[in-house]
């Protein structure tokens, strides 16, 4: 039995459907995230699960039980949002033990929970500190501890890391996942940050304009997205228009600019317009492979730490972004040089050309 079942949920504000007919399941001990651009409805969806908002249609079931008439405090969920929710006048210890105590847990049990929580968060030696004495990252960890302490096994995270410094944010991602997994919790995590979603979750739901358009494991969504919007939103992509020549043996032949390329099989028919997608880091420059080969002039080359970013002009108004790992040993082309850009056919994905135009499909 899934821990959380959301079925046919719709939530409107003044007639505008912020969440529209959403059905999704979250398994026990699963860590899922919901990503999408701002205004896509992800926070509204989470608030309906928490009971902060009431949906207009559909149902939420937690542990098989309908939440229809269940108020927030009876749903057994911990909620953490981006503003850190700690009592400023209470030491860390009191903040963390507040929940169990308020629920009437005996002192010994409350103490045991607080010790366990603080140990889990690596905050034991800061238990006497007040929130303002802790760094932002520590405060947010403490807020998670406080939300988990009353015994909640379902956690709802609403952009919990977005107020933190980039460096703290990326460290805390892995911490948060570790904590949820070590405690055997189920979590739904809402974020606009695709890298955070990939780092933290077992499964990702992509939401756009109130609808869940796709879900899957991080690697499947990143390397094999079924929807063009996912390819655009989750990480960086080259998105190029083309036309299908035909397909054979599980591969589709497609014309992009002046190049004939082979893509993994799609549903686009011969002669039709298509959109092809390849990740910038899966393209090699002046490498040995020759399956899909484009040539062009290096327009720019920028240092970006672990990768060098290239922009290759492969046709009139047609550019290919390439990210070359800095650790790659051989000589790399300079600005102005002609280079060969190659990639595997299975890394070239093909989609139907959107009927509303490319910009409508991948914008928001």
């Amino acid at each position, binding site marked *: 039995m899934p821990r959380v079942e959301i079925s046919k949920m719709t939530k409107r504000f003044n007639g505008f459907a912020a969440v529209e007919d959403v059905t999704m399941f979250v398994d026990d001990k699963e860590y899922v995230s919901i990503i999408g*651009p701002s205004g896509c409805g992800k926070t509204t969806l989470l608030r309906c699960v928490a009971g902060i908002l009431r949906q207009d249609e559909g149902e939420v079931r937690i542990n098989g039980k309908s939440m229809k008439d269940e108020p927030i405090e009876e749903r057994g969920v911990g909620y953490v949002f981006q503003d850190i929710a700690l009592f400023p006048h209470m030491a860390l210890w009191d903040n963390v033990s507040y929940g169990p105590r308020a629920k009437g847990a005996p002192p010994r049990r409350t103490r045991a929970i607080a010790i366990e929580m603080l140990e889990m968060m*690596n905050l034991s030696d800061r238990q006497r500190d007040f929130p303002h004495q802790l760094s932002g990252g520590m405060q947010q960890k403490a807020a998670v501890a406080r939300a988990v302490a009353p015994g909640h096994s379902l956690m709802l995270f609403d952009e919990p890391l977005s107020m933190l410094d980039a460096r703290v944010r990326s460290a805390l991602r892995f911490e948060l996942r570790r904590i949820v997994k070590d405690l055997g919790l189920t979590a739904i995590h809402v974020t606009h940050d*695709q890298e955070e979603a*990939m780092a933290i979750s077992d499964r990702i739901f992509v939401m756009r304009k109130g609808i869940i358009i796709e879900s899957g494991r991080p690697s499947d969504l990143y390397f094999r997205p079924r929807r063009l919007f996912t390819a655009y939103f989750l990480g*960086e992509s080259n998105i190029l228009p083309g036309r299908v020549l035909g397909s054979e043996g599980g591969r589709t032949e497609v014309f992009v600019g002046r190049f004939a390329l082979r893509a993994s099989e799609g549903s686009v028919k011969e002669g039709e317009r298509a959109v092809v997608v390849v990740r910038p*880091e899966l393209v*090699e420059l002046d490498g040995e492979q020759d399956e899909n080969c484009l040539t062009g002039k290096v327009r720019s080359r920028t240092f970006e730490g*672990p990768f060098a970013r290239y922009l290759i002009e492969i046709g009139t108004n047609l550019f290919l972004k390439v990210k070359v*790992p800095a650790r790659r040993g051989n000589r790399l082309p300079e600005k102005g040089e002609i280079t060969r850009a190659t990639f595997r056919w299975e890394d070239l994905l093909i989609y139907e050309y959107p009927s509303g135009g490319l910009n409508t499909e991948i914008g928001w």
Partner: protein
Amino acid sequence: MSALPRIELQGVSKRFDRIIALDNVSTHIDDGEYLCVLGPTGSGKTTLLRSIAGLVSPDEGSILIDGARVNDLPPERRNATMMPQNYALFPHMTAWENVAYGLRSKGASSEVIAKRTMDLFQRVRLQDWTGAYPNQLSGGMQQRVALIRCLASGARTLLLDEPLGALDARLRLDLRRHLKRFAKRFGLTVIHVTHDQSEAISLGDRILLLRHGRVEQAGTPRQMYFKPRTVFAASFVGDRMLFEGVVTEVRPEYVLVEIPRAGNIVATAQGMDKGELVVVTVRCESLRISTNSAHEINRLKGTVREVRPLGPYFRCAVEVPRGPTIYSHVPSGELLRNPVNVGSEVEVEFSPKEALAYKYPEKGLALEVEAL
């Protein structure tokens, strides 16, 4: 163009009550340069920016713009404009009115206003959007309108305080590049404050890393990335593993370091003594996973515990038996061709050139790098 630095700070200090926000900061920004001021929350980077803008007056030191001391000049006479984080476009005014507003308040004639405003809109290719209200524009368009509004008054220096902070992560990536192109096209001098090291690396001609109100290190992105001067700088710029150990042998340019429960490694260091406690840092992408290493040194054996895709690279966790867990970043193109399997026994190897040793910080490593 003058040979003078466009902006110069000489021994600038600023206190707020008991907090020292800036502590004797000296630096300069050249004409047409894109400087990223990087640092954690509370490092003084916003105070630095606001001091240049004239919104904060330093307790000590001088701020010079084009060679002239501007400490006593009001913000509007400094020829340096600050763009607020959320752009602060007037919502009830059209894009055109927003841009023309600055000129109008300076008392320009309506002819001059119209000509200059149109010129700016054309240069950012928004001439068809002059009648739109801010909420009818995309995030990228709003940013362009906010930028040309800053320029409308004739300012050649742009001060940006976390200009991408309020945006979706996805949009942030696109707008980064627009920002840099915009600055270079208009020949602007830019000071850009950020806490995001990857933003600083990909945008800055130079980076100024601040910490506790002081300059920790200044240099080009490459210098900051490959040659961090301190453990803090190393931990702040790029993703790195930090190993604690003891120097057991000293050679010219290299030291042999014993890492408890992991083994010996050869690291680059100068001026270290035998027996000294050190921290060795290695960038995560320099830690290579192999199953049949040909190298004799800097090989750590372990078991792969997790392989997590993070987009352009995979983060592989390799656990050394009873020792540290090492995080290696493997480029996705490489990993898809040569998969790394969870549970397999591997070696993690790295070049002595990639391993940088620093003296162990006095107050302890965790406090020094301000870890979680």
